């Protein structure tokens, strides 16, 4: 890429450390430990102008509690707001979970690179997600669905521990309308009539053909490991497989020194990588 991919960040954040104030407009309880927040910038002009790319991430501040990194889980095709999904695990995520609608948060966004969706035009796209790993893929999935004509077959395999751990259930009908959605859980319950089993195994059963196809995978490291093995067995090459990496981050602009793998920084060289790019990195993952 010859142009500066960070131009989109710099234009919207003259001082990349200064958050934009935003109102939490809507809080969706996804599961027992995960909520999705819809935030709207206070500044009306910014609300209109703000733009990002699917796969980019943001830094969300709860004033006084601190700041945390989340992917933008909404699609830029849906204007006026941004969304992020938060699993309650630490101090800041707990503070976020305690917020009510109407609360003020600080948002620094957008950061990082994004899925090369233009290069995928005319191709089939398979999304292979597990648990909260569906959050970053929801952005690109909805982006592809909103530009449905540009892509071939779109399929999603989405797995979670239990039916109660599945996020974005309210969008399943919409996803099914224009693409295939294959759900699986590690352990079902009385009401679950769907498939029980792990994501990588389901992938082998569905056996997508590698020709003219892109695979995007995100989820727990163990799932990615086996999904990757299986994709290779199905004939996928590393450069056809994409993921978005997670590392501890603070600044988002390659300064604070946390998210490097070798000389690459996940925050500015990623978070989206193809597996042939990942292979070039030191084996820190």
């Amino acid at each position, binding site marked *: 890429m010859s142009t500066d991919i960070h131009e989109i960040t710099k234009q919207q954040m003259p001082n990349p450390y200064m958050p934009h104030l935003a109102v939490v407009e809507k809080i969706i309880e996804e599961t027992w430990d995960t909520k999705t927040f819809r935030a709207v910038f206070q500044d009306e002009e910014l609300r209109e102008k703000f733009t990002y790319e699917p796969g980019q991430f943001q830094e969300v501040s709860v004033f006084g509690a601190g700041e945390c990194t989340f992917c933008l889980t909404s699609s830029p095709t849906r204007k006026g707001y941004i969304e992020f999904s938060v699993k309650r695990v630490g101090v800041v995520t707990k503070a976020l979970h305690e917020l009510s609608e109407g609360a003020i948060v600080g948002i620094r966004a957008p950061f990082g690179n994004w899925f090369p969706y233009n290069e995928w035009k005319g191709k089939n796209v398979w999304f292979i997600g597990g648990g909260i790993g569906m959050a970053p893929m929801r952005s690109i999935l909805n982006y592809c669905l909103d530009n449905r004509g540009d892509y071939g077959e779109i399929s999603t395999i989405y797995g979670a521990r239990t039916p109660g751990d599945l996020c974005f259930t309210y969008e399943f009908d919409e996803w099914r309308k224009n693409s295939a959605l294959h759900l699986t859980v590690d352990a079902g319950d009385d009401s679950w009539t769907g498939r029980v089993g792990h994501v990588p195994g389901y992938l082998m059963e569905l056996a997508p053909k590698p020709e003219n196809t892109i695979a995007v995978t995100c989820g727990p490291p163990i799932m990615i490991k086996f999904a990757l093995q299986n994709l290779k067995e199905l004939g996928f090459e590393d450069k056809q497989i994409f993921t978005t990496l997670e590392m501890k981050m603070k*600044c988002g602009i390659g300064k604070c020194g946390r998210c*490097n793998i070798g000389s690459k920084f996940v925050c500015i060289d990623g978070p989206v990588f193809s597996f042939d790019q990942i292979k070039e990195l030191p084996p820190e993952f």
Partner: protein
Amino acid sequence: MSDKIIAKTDLRQWLASLVAGNDVIAPLGREGGPAQWKAIDGNQEIDLGAGQMVMAAKEYLLPVHDVLWRYETKKGEEKLEQPELPDRPTVMVGLRLCDARAISVLDSVYMDGRFRDPYYATRREKLALVATVCDDPRWSCFCTSVGDLDEWAKGVDVLLTDLGDNVYAAPVTEKGKQLVQGSFFKDPTEDQTKKKAEAWEKLKAMPKKPFAGKNITENVSWDAAIWDDMAKRCLGCGACSYQCPSCSCFDIQDITTGSLVERYRCRDTCQFTDFTLMGAGHNPRPEKKMRTRQRVMHKFKYQMEQFNIIGCTGCGRCIESCPVNIDMRDVLTALVEQAD
């Protein structure tokens, strides 16, 4: 550039003249501890050669507590403000050349074309560096083994050389030329110029370590045995990186006082377990060996790949501050020997 000579007895007068138009920062002694970078008013006695164990110059460019913004809610009104940054030109006097070089390393990180750090850049653009040629390197020094001093000297604005009763002042940049002004500056004699050149050659002739002249970047290997040896001794205290003039990783934290939230950044180090520990519990560098390797590889390989600069200036602070005597020179020697 027009080199000048100033008598040591006139130094205070020169500094006073600098103070008139600039903020001047110099190493000032502290009882029982290392000298610190402090603003001077022109009346203090500063020893230009005292920069030896002073805290690194990052103390000024990356303050230990660097406020990024303040957020306050009052009667339902939110106020988010950036603190004021220095608007006066600033001169740092009495730097060692290694510490000046460390600023070049920091510049690559913080002024990097991809993202310019506004806090660092504002300070840096107003800053002039007046460095001193070392005439008495410490036991821990190894600058000449990791870098080319002639190259490093290009990164300062004025280079001073102690000639006994006089100080030889060589402006390197246009900015530096503006600083070497005043009736107390004389043109150097031939003899003084010769002595200055001798002092420079003497510094460059400092005994070299076994790894000098080798391509350290190519020899820093992921699987080297030295990482295990280091990890066995390392306490993970992080003193090396806190004292390091070119280590620049930071943490970002909030501090709340009543309705005021202050976000600041402060020093952090890759030697701490929680540096990379993620909320959900995963840590890509859970073992000490991975962290010692990260620090050395970052300096000698990753920064080279990223910015074409070595992130170590051989200042020796990590060696002097390490409580278990891990010596960077031994580490580099081991890496080079293993590769041979």
